């Protein structure tokens, strides 16, 4: 029997001219950049002119489903959207699970590159290789759930059709607008507003193409063995039962659960919003494509929010509308989560921004007139939920917060920037780095701005063995770098980070699976080298945009204001020490620029020349 050939097919779509062409990505490029996040970074670096306005037709919007997605390998649902962020001006890579990524590959394409801007709202329908532009004028203003339902219905109602769409927040240019597929969100950094700026309302995909696996027999044996092993892993069973919200209690107990806009690290009402309370409201379990863990929970709120049900909320969302806003009403959190998904907005940035506004209001930096009749104080869940609506509609103060906290603080003025908990313009999430020092490195050096997902350091945040002292700065550069690279390789291949981080699959097994897919033997070290290449390329992208090491920083509160409570009491972040250690480990200079020998080692000399001239 003839061996299968490995092919990675991209559909390049010119929205301005409403035409498209099929392109094949060379296998060597997949081995070098893996796919998903890594391949997206390479395409964006090569094709995007520096200083491009993120909301102009010249920006590109790249969807790519990594080479493991849809193969039958467990834990591999994560497709990546890559663009230049309108929130941060950095490179943006944002991932979502669910079913869209696998269905995109079954439709005949591994990735999509959108260019230009359509002259009227459109959605793209891809079915078994066939591509069609369809008018989307009737979908404008619709919530994302209604939009998906309408599209599916007009395409015949097949439940196998997967749809990714923007919502009203994208149309109104909320800078942290997301793309929603099912209940899953391409959440952070504003990919949704880039999509809306192109007059691209949605993408619908369906199909039955078999995805390429060069050594199919060996692959099947291996993935069956991994699934069998995963069934006996106690941590995965516990993770599957409660999902991410379980860690609220643990992070709070460890004293790094940001409370009331990072004024403290311990939320005294945590038990009111814990996963145990959530379990009382769970209707059923949910899952992503081909994942035996099924960590999702469909949750229904109770009065006065009983009309809302949502998949989740996840840990970060519980925090964003819980401790961050000083709110202990769990049903309000469920409602706020659902509203964000319906409008198409990132929950972390939305909740963080509302907490910022609450603190500004309490400190007299926002007037009664600014608040538009809302009693916006910590703990007022009605005001919080209403504020979500106002951001989604860009109404009153919501119009200001829709710009993100950095821009909002610039407009509010006075000392408000001190209370904007953001890095490079992206609102930071639910771990206070004063109590977890290597998380300070993730926040400050993450290529898309202040996020945890480019390197969630579980040893510090949750106490995953082997033990490290979360309050020490010693050796944290190497710890952070390991997680940054490990995450980059999983993001690029399409793997959800949680099952591997909990013993479901190790990187050696992942390397073996990937080797079978592309037909070339690759080791764990090869994957880590590719990950390092990706991390450095993303760094070069930002340097080319003029975003230098000076912006590897944290909100001043975390550098100056000692943690007032909990196990990290008295601590601030010693960022300079941490950064110099990290730069050294990365073989970057003291300004955070990759050294020529590092770029040579990674095969990025040309990119280095382009970025650093």
């Amino acid at each position: 029997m003839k061996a299968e050939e490995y092919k990675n097919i991209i559909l390049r779509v010119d929205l301005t001219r409403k035409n498209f062409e099929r392109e094949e990505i060379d296998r060597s490029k997949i081995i070098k950049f893996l796919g998903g996040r890594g391949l997206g970074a390479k395409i964006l670096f090569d094709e995007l002119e520096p200083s491009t306005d993120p909301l102009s037709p010249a920006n590109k919007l790249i969807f790519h489903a990594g080479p493991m997605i849809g193969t039958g390998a467990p834990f591999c649902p994560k497709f990546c959207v890559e663009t230049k962020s309108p929130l941060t001006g950095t490179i943006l890579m944002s991932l979502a699970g669910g079913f869209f990524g696998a269905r995109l590959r079954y439709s005949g394409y591994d990735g999509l590159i959108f260019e230009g801007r359509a002259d009227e709202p459109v959605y793209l329908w891809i079915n078994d290789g066939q591509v069609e532009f369809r008018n989307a004028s009737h979908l404008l203003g619709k919530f994302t759930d209604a939009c998906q339902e309408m599209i599916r219905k007009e395409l015949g109602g097949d439940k196998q059709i997967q749809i990714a769409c923007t919502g009203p927040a994208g149309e109104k240019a909320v800078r942290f607008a997301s793309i929603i597929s099912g209940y899953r969100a391409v959440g952070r950094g504003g990919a949704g507003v880039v999509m809306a700026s192109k007059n691209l309302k949605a993408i619908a995909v369906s199909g039955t193409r078999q995805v390429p696996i060069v050594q199919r027999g060996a692959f099947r044996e291996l993935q069956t063995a991994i699934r069998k092993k995963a069934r006996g892993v106690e941590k995965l069973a516990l993770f599957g039962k409660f999902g991410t919200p379980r860690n609220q209690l643990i992070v709070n107990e460890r004293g790094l659960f940001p409370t009331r806009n990072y004024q403290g690290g311990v939320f005294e009402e945590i038990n009111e919003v814990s996963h145990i309370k959530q379990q009382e409201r769970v209707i059923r379990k949910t899952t992503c494509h081909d994942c035996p863990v099924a960590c999702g929970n469909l949750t229904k709120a109770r009065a006065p929010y009983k009309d809302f049900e949502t998949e989740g909320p996840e840990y970060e969302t519980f925090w964003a509308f819980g401790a961050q806003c000083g709110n202990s009403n769990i049903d309000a959190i469920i409602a706020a989560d659902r509203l964000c998904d319906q409008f198409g907005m990132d929950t972390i940035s939305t909740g963080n921004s509302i907490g910022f506004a609450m603190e500004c209001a309490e400190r007299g930096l926002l007037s009664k007139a600014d608040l538009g009749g809302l009693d916006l104080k910590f703990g007022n869940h009605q005001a919080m939920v209403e504020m979500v609506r106002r951001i989604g509609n860009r109404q009153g103060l919501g119009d200001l917060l829709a710009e993100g906290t950095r821009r909002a603080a610039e407009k509010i003025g006075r000392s408000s920037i001190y209370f904007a908990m953001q890095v490079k313009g992206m609102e930071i999430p639910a771990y206070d780095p004063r109590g977890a020092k290597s998380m300070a490195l993730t926040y400050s050096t993450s290529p898309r701005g202040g996020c945890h997902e480019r390197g969630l350091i579980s040893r510090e945040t949750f106490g995953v063995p082997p033990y490290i002292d979360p309050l020490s700065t010693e050796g944290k550069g190497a710890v952070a770098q390991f997680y940054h690279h490990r995450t980059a390789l999983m993001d690029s291949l399409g793997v959800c980070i949680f099952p591997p981080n909990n013993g479901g699959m190790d990187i050696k097994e992942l390397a073996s699976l990937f080797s079978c897919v592309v037909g070339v033997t690759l080791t764990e070290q090869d994957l880590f080298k590719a990950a390092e290449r990706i991390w450095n390329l993303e760094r070069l992208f930002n340097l080319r945009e003029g975003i230098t090491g000076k912006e590897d920083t944290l909100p001043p509160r975390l550098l100056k204001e000692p943690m007032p409570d909990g196990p990290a009491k008295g601590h601030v972040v010693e960022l300079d020490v941490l950064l110099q250690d990290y730069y050294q480990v990365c073989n970057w200079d003291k300004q955070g620029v990759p050294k020529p020998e590092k770029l040579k080692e990674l095969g990025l000399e040309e990119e280095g020349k382009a970025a650093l001239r």
Partner: protein
Amino acid sequence: MTVKFYGHPSQGGGELIEEVEVTPETTVKGVVDLFSSKHQTSLAGSSQSSTPRNLEQTHVVMVNGISVEKIKLSTSTVQEGDKITIFLPISGG
């Protein structure tokens, strides 16, 4: 003297399970060993695990809300009224 052993709420519980009588020289490891021999299943994190084993290798032990480094389990002694919890740490957030 007594120390208090709590089931960690992250496992689905959170209430006081037992007050344990110990001598002033008892180490944290000593308390965990004593306790885990009696409450293996509830501490393990899932009902699938009932086989006795060394929980401190996989779990985090906290005394009064502060994690105890593995190496210090055998050297740190407990104090009257200490609140001890133990949980299986999982990555996910």
